[in-house]
């Protein structure tokens, strides 16, 4: 177990290092000179050169990587060195604040968005998937599958706008203001308002995922229902609903958990469209804005953050799988 965990951590760290180096080089290739983008429109060449110099853009790449990892640009009064949290990922060119601070300030929004959505889509997918598997071939199964395909094929920018239109705009026409169309209230401030503000984005994200997950649950259930131990459960006289929701579902969840972890990581890395439509100031918007502005350190920082989310979600999936199936260890 210790060796397994050790290996996992080693692989996670090396993954992060590789992602960091690749992200660093991509930003160098993608932009000619961020100093031009950062400078005012009519800035003189001297001014641009001054900016480039201040950001150390004239230094060779290995020094730039070193500064990025180790100290960030020279800013008066800022702590330096990798031991000094937070500037290990450098400073934003534009905002002059540590990248880590910038990202961490956006995490609560993105985390709330992702976790709420995952709960909704998993619950609905499992429910609909089991029902469809139980009534395989019936009109109900076909109806659910039809819904799944619609959910699969409608892009988020469309479903988000439609949800916003009907559940916010049309309702508000009737004087009903259940769901605000934008904004974010921290959970610690007011849990009810938190959920109310996030309801529509959650729904938008969940709708996009239910299609895949419902079909996955259904297919996995149908496979498990053919297993011998399901017949054994029936032979023991276990009630049908328990055969489905306990015996079969328990075994059918393996691929659902694995894919669920990956999808959660994708959303943590930035649900850009959803965040934009509902005006949520999350990591996704930070990433896209910094990319547009040529703010390298933030671009790399958000990439690293996405990679960290992947690593953590994989880790969580691993732990859940082991907890569900302790016998697999020996």
């Amino acid at each position: 177990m210790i060796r397994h965990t050790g290996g996992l951590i080693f692989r996670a760290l090396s993954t992060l290092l590789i992602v960091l180096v690749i992200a660093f080089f991509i930003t160098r290739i993608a932009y000619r000179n961020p100093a031009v983008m950062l400078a005012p429109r009519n800035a003189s060449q001297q001014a641009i050169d001054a900016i480039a110099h201040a950001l150390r853009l004239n230094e060779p790449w290995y020094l730039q990587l070193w500064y990025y990892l180790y100290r960030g640009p020279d800013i008066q009064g800022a702590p330096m060195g990798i031991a000094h949290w937070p500037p290990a990922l450098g400073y934003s060119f534009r905002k002059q604040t540590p990248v880590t601070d910038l990202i961490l300030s956006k995490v609560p929004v993105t985390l709330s968005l992702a976790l709420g959505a995952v709960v909704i889509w998993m619950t609905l997918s499992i429910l609909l998937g089991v029902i469809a598997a139980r009534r395989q071939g019936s009109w109900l199964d076909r109806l659910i599958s039809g819904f799944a395909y619609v959910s699969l094929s409608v892009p988020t920018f469309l479903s988000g706008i439609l949800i916003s239109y009907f559940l916010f705009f049309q309702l508000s026409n009737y004087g009903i203001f259940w769901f605000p169309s934008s904004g974010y209230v921290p959970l610690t401030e007011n849990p009810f308002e938190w959920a109310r503000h996030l309801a529509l984005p959650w729904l938008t994200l969940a709708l996009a995922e239910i299609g895949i997950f419902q079909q996955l649950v259904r297919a996995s259930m149908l496979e498990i229902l053919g297993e011998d131990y399901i017949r054994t459960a029936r032979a023991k006289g276990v009630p049908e609903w328990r055969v489905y929701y306990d015996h079969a579902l328990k075994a059918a969840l393996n691929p659902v958990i694995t894919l669920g972890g990956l999808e959660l990581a994708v959303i943590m890395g930035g649900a850009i469209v959803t965040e934009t439509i509902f005006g949520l100031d999350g990591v996704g918007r930070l990433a896209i804005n910094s990319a547009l502005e040529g703010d390298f350190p933030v671009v790399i920082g958000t990439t690293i953050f996405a990679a960290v989310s992947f690593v953590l979600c994989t880790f969580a999936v691993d732990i859940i799988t082991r907890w569900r199936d302790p016998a697999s260890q020996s």
Partner: protein
Amino acid sequence: MPIFSVADLRVAFGAVDVVHGVSFAVEPGRTLAIVGESGSGKSVSLLGATGLLPPQASVRGSVLHKGDEILGLSAGDLRRRRGADIGFIFQDPLSNLHPLKTIGQQIAEAITAHRKVGRGELRERVLDLLADVGIPDPLARVNDYPRQFSGGMRQRVMIAAAIALNPGLIIADEPTTALDVTVQASILDLLKRIQQDHGTAMIFVSHDLAVVSDIADDVLVMRAGHVVEQAPAELIYRAPRQAYTRELLGAARLGGLVARAARPSLLPALPSMPDLLSVSAIARSFAGRSAAGGLIRPVLQNISFTVRENEIVGLVGESGSGKSTIGRLIAGLDRPDEGSISLRERIYSRPGRGGVAIDRQLRSDIQVIFQDPYASLNPRRRIRSILAEPFIIGTKLDAAAIRRRVEDLVRDVELPEDVLDRFPAQLSGGQRQRVAIARAIALEPSLIVADEPVSALDITTQAKIIKLLRTIRRQRGLSLLFISHDLGVVSELCDRVIVLEKGVIVEAGETARVFGAPRHPYTIKLIDAIPGKALQRNPVPERIAAHA
């Protein structure tokens, strides 16, 4: 009055009838054995009668349980009888136990599905049941998962779940087929004891008349969905009326190892034949469980033997004895930790790092047949392409020549030519194993390692495959290392036999000698565990003699 009776039972899947009017009954305290090959409809009849078939199956006829008609009962009413009044034990205890639930949960569930029981009492009863079916240290094992048990222990867990509510009827569907012979004997004893303690009626399904001979009061022989013969057990064994029953009896080895093995025609290998394979002092161990702190578990110790040209050597032992590991080492799929293996005096396997890289010539010289023909053939390839592969890899023949060779091969293993365009799933178990044999002999090897090649097959199919192996040996002059836990099969086929216990050779010699006059207590124990002994010992009762 019978506790369970079936009259004119018919089962159909769509337009295909699989059971054509079967009738039988079983009384409390008695055992009815239903015997037949796979596909004879024996399991389907019982599953159909108890509502365990998928809804596509149509079941007609009459099924009386405790005097009530249960065919056509609602799913809920049937459910209340299953488990509470009818206990089930199925063949493969690994696939029949839920992999993600502890055995304690699975046994407790047999109780909670029907009764409301408090937590403490439930736990007590589960522990009692585990002790009752002979699981050592139930308290320590109750939270373990099926994978952490051996095959025999898993089957005991299945039995514990089946008897949890003390049902009046137990339906056991091939409960010992996947088990070692000594384990099989202990499971049969357990079932017999439970039956005597509780006066339970039992329906015991098997493909092997020998297995049921010690336990059955009545026997029903089925074939292709029909009842062939139905009679008290004594009559079936002493005076079978139908030719098919006699065929089954002939295939079953009713404790009669020695007589067969002693037939002189089965000892054609001349002592003057030179050694083909020589295994000298090999040892192999594997890292133990991580919980034990990386302990080394020795699997084989100081194994030495030879296989002569044109000889069939049997390697017998229970599961865990290391016999498959020997097979893997000889086939070059693994390396020994000590010792060496040579073919025609050329050493090709000795200790070292990594897998054995044996050259192409040697690879085609040593071929393997595995136990499970379902798993060892690629399900997505036609038989033609499966059989062409060895030629593509091992020879430089052109497509037309390969085609001819493949057709020859199919004829050699006595398969009809039209199997070539089918997929493995469209073949019977016996046909699939013939394909596996054809693949193994394709490149004319000098040695075939056959790892339990007939264990997954019906007893009548076993007999045919053994005959085929014997023919191939005679025609092609190859040698065979035949690995099996089934002493009956080994005694019929092998010239010499090696008995393996826990990674050590305890006895070796001519088959007739080893089975006729075993010297090691373990060999004696194995031979004693062969079912059907009781029939041999008892003289024919008078009433039967009169009947005959």
